[in-house]
């Protein structure tokens, strides 16, 4: 079992299915069971890709307004 902080609420969760979990990891918990460790690098990559999309959008909008 591990202690998980749910945005301020502390509860125990079973980590039977998550042998690799470390103290300080973000986890997805369902029915008292930790299912996955959240991959922070992947999270940052997704955010970066979406921000990049946003940049492209703005460029396109600028191009549109010039045309």
């Amino acid at each position, binding site marked *: 079992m591990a202690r998980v902080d749910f945005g301020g609420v502390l*509860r125990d969760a*079973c980590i*039977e*299915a*998550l*042998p690799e979990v470390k103290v300080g990891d*973000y986890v*997805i918990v*369902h*029915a*008292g*069971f930790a*299912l*996955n460790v*959240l*991959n*922070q690098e*992947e*999270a*940052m*990559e*997704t*955010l970066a890709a*979406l*921000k990049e*999309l*946003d940049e492209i*959008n703005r460029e*396109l909008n600028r191009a549109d307004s010039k045309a």
Partner: protein
Amino acid sequence: MSAKPIEYSPAAFLDPDLTLRVIQEIKRTVTRPWTIMEICGGQTHALFHSGLDELLPSEIELVHGPGCPVCVTSLELLDKALAIATQPDVIFCSFGDMLRVPGSQKDLFSVKAAGHTVKVVYSPMDAVEIARQNSDKEVVFFAIGFETTGPANASSVLQAKALGVKNYSILVSQVCVPPAMHAILSAPGNRVQGFLAAGHVCAVMGYWEYPPIAEKYKVPIVVTGFDALDLAQGILKNVQQLEKGTHEVENAYTRVVTFEGNKSAQKLINEVYQPCDRNWRGIGSIPMSGWELRPAYQEFNAENRFEIGDIHTQESKICIAGSILQGMKKPFDCPAFGTLCTPDKPLGAPMVSAEGACSAYYKYHSLSGIK
């Protein structure tokens, strides 16, 4: 580009500015009407909670899938649960939202009100602990849910076995998403052209089961998370594919989901459960769409442990939950919505649950009327 990575914060995926910009991109991409289904009831609620449904271009129609575990738990099993819970010396344990789901005659709340012991637990592990502390009682856990509850429910059986807890059993109603997608896509009159696959189901199972579905029915399937930005991204990827005419399986929830899923969790499930046909409330029987206890764990099967008389199920005559769960009708199409059927007095399970489509419409749209 940036040298120093910014530290991760869970709130980053709720960023309204970035979400709005992804919606802008959806608007820029879409040229004609598309119907997309979010399988998971948790996503239905998240879409309404974030207001995303109001922000999307009118070309995109979201239909709500059957991914609400209490909604699809068969009436027969619920009636069995009610029959077990009324037996003497039974402590019946369940996830909270099952208690108000109407059975043929009553619900678990009314059984509790009549003096029987029905306990809400947060995890099946809590039920095992209750069994350990009450060795003179039979403790039954209503093991409902999709693939997400599989590891916890299976683990509770292994735990009971390891601890020698003989008075613990489970009433199993485990269901699986991919067979339901097959059923929806092959149904006559299907309107679904793309799917948001349920992120947390995929967190457990991975998404290796989806490429054959995408290929067979020529639909894009995008593994999607639950925050506003995740949902917007999942819809964008769907629309991009639909406009291009492709039907790939994409992962828009990479921070949680891998192709293989959680192997340790799958091992727990496979140890305890085997695939079986299952009856879905409102939908009917879907082949190999659920899990049942393996022969080696039949001693923990509540259905074997109790004498349950004949069950004669009877559904509400007005409720259209079945059509709603298959994405054929919307809650506002139901004559009982918000009048005869409310979260306080539900006629059908989708009005009860935090994952039910009717409850989402009632909670977030009760004032806006027909949309």
